């Protein structure tokens, strides 16, 4: 029985969001709040020779100007700045730590004032002299410092030889430019100071990650710091790692022993992070019948000088299509930029884009329809690890997507389709991503009036986590949606990883189910203790929660209401916390798949390009909410 899971349920937080009731990090007001503004570096590499805050300090209403010279103590060791998702290799950026400038728009001073306007104005008066070094921010520059990483996946066969022996060969290189997340909500943190304890409202995708990080950076006891992020106005991966607004707001609060808010400007957000620019090189060898013999995929991506950020760009190429040989490599060009970060299917969005373009080249070389080519090289196994998929419905994606699009009317001859003065092109591509699950805990507090509060330290970055958690809890507890309250985005809540990687729904749902099972077990114990209990003798798997009752699965007339069960046990509230722990099961590959078909129109003479139609067919397992799922496509 699942009256809610899978149904197109409107967002439970929708009303609060459109009426302004949902509060974001910069909207929590407290008494005596000071306001901070960041001064960022005007050079990309060098050191601060002199920093003079005197003019800024003279502005009425300015409380302090913090720089690397006068800030309160922070952890010295770079390892103290590590977080749950940052790169393993390298040494994380330490805001306001010393005089070194590693990238343009690096924070180098923080002005704190009574009003945000005063802080921002005074920030413009901080005088900085630099010793500037030559910087490199161009991936294409010769002589860049290149780091070769371990192969993203094990090679198979001899791809070089197989390619050379192939009848049909396609070699191609693609460039993916740097892309910025710049979500609608500005990066902001409000650090509320209360007798040495600090509550931080931060814009983040992981309150517990930020909590651990800040405790480590400032040597604070976990109980003295709390991080909240009840609503997030978009993040797209930029909020996975702790960003400097949280560090600087806490730094200022500790320096002044006062509550401080810091809001970054839209321009300053370009100094946070980005999807790395990459050069993707592919070589695909095939025979005339349209089977692939060899795939070689190399990526060169940019990273900072101080950390090696890398994601899997290339191994998708040998995973997605049947090929007897495959080889991958990933290199990094170390530039004078902040470290890149995850952004919407990191790695895949760049690498699969290149692969799919190369597949189109192959389809042309083979004179085969692009969809037909993908059927011919379809793989029912993950060849990188030689294991089957938990599920793979990509064939159906191709079939249904092509049907909805009207793909059979496509004329494959280049320049053959026109509408008026426009050339019309129809193209398609495969999409693939991981279907991950991460250990996550959830707590349910059930009260005798039949209301349940469900809590988890995850985030809702706009994807609908509040809503699907409500649906899952309602079904698992047999209660109506309106009897469920979801709490998330608070570091004191049960442990959850950052919300990212597309793993949250598939992880937190199981945690809720596990906690609900504990609730059910306890309710059964209480119900059986009642005199003449209709459930006596029944085991936990013999009963189900539905319509506010615990009932015999075989005979729904035999039931005890939740309220009665709790009354028998003299319980006002039942509280259960449980976690979903996922075994690392390497016997299966877990992926989601999609087929995307697009119509593009080009006015050739004027170079105007319009994307006029897109059809996406997605196989992503069990869809919890068709409405929020659609909004993600």
């Amino acid at each position, binding site marked *: 029985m699942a009256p809610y899971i899978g149904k197109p349920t409107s967002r439970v937080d929708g009303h609060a969001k459109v009426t302004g009731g949902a509060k974001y990090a910069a909207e929590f007001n407290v008494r005596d709040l000071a306001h901070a503004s960041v001064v960022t570096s*005007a050079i990309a590499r060098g050191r601060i020779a002199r920093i003079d805050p005197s003019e800024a300090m003279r*502005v009425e*209403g300015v409380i302090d100007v913090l720089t690397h010279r006068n800030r309160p103590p922070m952890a010295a060791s770079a390892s103290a700045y590590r977080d749950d998702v940052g790169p393993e290799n390298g040494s994380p950026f330490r805001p306001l730590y010393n005089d070194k400038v590693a990238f343009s728009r690096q924070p180098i001073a923080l002005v704190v004032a009574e009003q945000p*306007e*005063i802080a921002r*104005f005074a920030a*413009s008066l901080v005088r900085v002299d630099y010793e500037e070094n030559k910087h490199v921010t161009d991936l294409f520059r010769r002589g860049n410092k290149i780091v070769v990483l371990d192969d993203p996946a094990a090679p198979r066969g001899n791809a070089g030889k197989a390619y050379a022996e192939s009848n049909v060969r396609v070699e191609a290189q693609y460039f993916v430019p740097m892309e910025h997340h710049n979500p609608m909500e500005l990066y902001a943190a409000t650090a509320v100071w209360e007798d040495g304890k600090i509550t931080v409202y931060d814009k983040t995708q992981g309150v517990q990650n930020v909590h651990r990080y800040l405790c480590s950076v400032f040597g604070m006891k976990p109980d003295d710091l709390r991080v909240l992020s009840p609503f997030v106005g978009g993040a797209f991966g930029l909020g996975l790692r702790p960003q400097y607004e949280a560090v600087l707001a806490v730094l200022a609060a500790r320096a002044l022993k006062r509550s401080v808010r810091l809001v970054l400007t839209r321009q300053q957000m370009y100094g946070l992070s980005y999807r790395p620019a990459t050069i993707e090189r592919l070589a695909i060898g095939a025979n005339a019948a349209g089977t692939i013999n060899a795939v070689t995929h190399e990526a060169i991506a940019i990273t900072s000088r101080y950390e090696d950020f890398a994601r899997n760009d290339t191994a998708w190429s040998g995973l997605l299509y049947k090929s007897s040989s495959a080889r991958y490599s990933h290199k990094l060009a170390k530039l004078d930029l902040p470290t890149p970060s995850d952004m919407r299917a990191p790695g895949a969005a760049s690498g699969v884009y290149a692969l799919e373009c190369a597949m189109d080249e192959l389809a042309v070389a083979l004179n085969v329809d692009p969809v037909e080519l993908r059927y011919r090289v379809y793989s029912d196994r993950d060849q990188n690890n030689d294991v089957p998929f938990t599920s793979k419905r990509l064939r159906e994606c191709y079939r249904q997507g092509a049907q909805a699009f009207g793909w059979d009317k496509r004329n494959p001859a280049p320049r053959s389709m026109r509408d*008026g*003065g*426009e050339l019309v092109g129809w193209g398609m591509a495969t999409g693939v991503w991981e279907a991950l699950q991460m250990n996550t805990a959830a707590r349910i507090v059930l009260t005798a009036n039949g209301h349940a509060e469900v809590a988890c330290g995850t985030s809702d970055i706009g994807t609908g986590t509040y809503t699907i958690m409500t649906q899952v809890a309602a079904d698992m507890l047999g209660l109506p949606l309106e009897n469920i309250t979801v709490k998330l985005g608070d570091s004191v809540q049960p442990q959850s990883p950052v919300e990212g990687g597309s793993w949250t729904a598939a992880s937190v749902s199981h945690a809720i189910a596990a906690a609900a099972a504990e609730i059910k077990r306890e309710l059964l114990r209480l119900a059986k203790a009642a005199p003449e209990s209709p459930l006596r003798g029944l085991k936990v798997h013999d009963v189900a929660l539905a319509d506010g009752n615990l009932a015999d699965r075989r005979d729904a007339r035999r039931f005890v209401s939740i309220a009665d069960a709790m009354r028998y046990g003299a319980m006002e509230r039942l509280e259960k916390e449980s976690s979903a722990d996922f075994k690392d099961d390497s016997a299966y590959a877990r992926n989601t798949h999609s087929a995307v078909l697009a119509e593009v*129109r080009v*006015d050739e*003479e*004027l*170079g*105007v390009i*319009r994307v006029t139609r897109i059809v996406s067919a997605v196989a992503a397992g069990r869809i919890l909410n068709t409405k929020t799922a659609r909004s993600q496509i």
Partner: protein
Amino acid sequence: MINFQYSRASDVADAVRQISAERAAKFIAGGTNLIDLMKEDVERPSRLIDISRLPLKTIEETEDGGLSIGALMSNSDLAYHPLIAQRYPLLASAILAGASAQLRNMASAGGNLLQRTRCAYFYDLATPCNKREPGSGCSAINGVNRMHAILGTSHACIATHPSDMCVALAALEARVRVTGTAGDRVIEFADFHRLPGKTPQRDTNLRSDEIVTAIELPAQGFAANYTYLKIRDRLSYAFSLVSVAAALELESGTIKEARLALGGVAHRPRRDAAVEAALRGQPAGRIAFAHGADMLLRDARGFAHNGFKIELAHRCIVRALTQAAQSTPQSQSDKRIR
């Protein structure tokens, strides 16, 4: 804090009195450009003289059969005014090609004329800019100049004027009515904006004590054969790479009168009477249009990133004149280029 005074002008004479009394004062109407510039610290007026309540928001018929547009009419009210939509659809189209509905609701007609360039270096205080700080140098000439001018540039400045509306006004031979301490005067549209020369800090020939009170349109509106064609990096809410206001008067396939103005390519709308004279008497077709484009772009010169604009402008002129000749003006809502 950089404080400024705020005062309201009670009438046009009071506005002139106030602006002439304070050198660093500025008028504010919609504020869609000035407020941004103040936030970025590019403009630092000592006083904002609020003219938004002055009674300059109507359209009136003029004696010569044209229209006089109050300088404080919003861009939206202007574009959707029935007299403009019917008689001067080129102007309506150009306005609707620019900005967003929200900005057009706020922005005034006079303010549209006086908006400043969107050159990124003009906005970036960390870089030199002769327009912002005369004598400091031009960062765009050797910088990222994809959006910049290809005509009428100088060693001091290669910025473009960002307006769409002004391109149509140039083609329509509008006049700008102004009032100053010396009284009223009328400025021909071609004389209103300046080329950068050695004084790029001066965008227009408006005197420091003058206020724009009206924009006058002559009787001929070219409502039958016109188009406003704007090419930009994304199809809405972006400044133009190249835009063309084209208007024709045809007599059995022959060009009787032609108007042609380019936007996105110079410090002011680019128009050349000699080009229009050369079009007159020619059959309305590709040969004449291409010749006109050649003439108008004769002195065009590209920089590192905007050389493509020359060829793009050429093709846009031919396409726009074709649209005008065929009475198939570019729609500003359906983004397909006709």
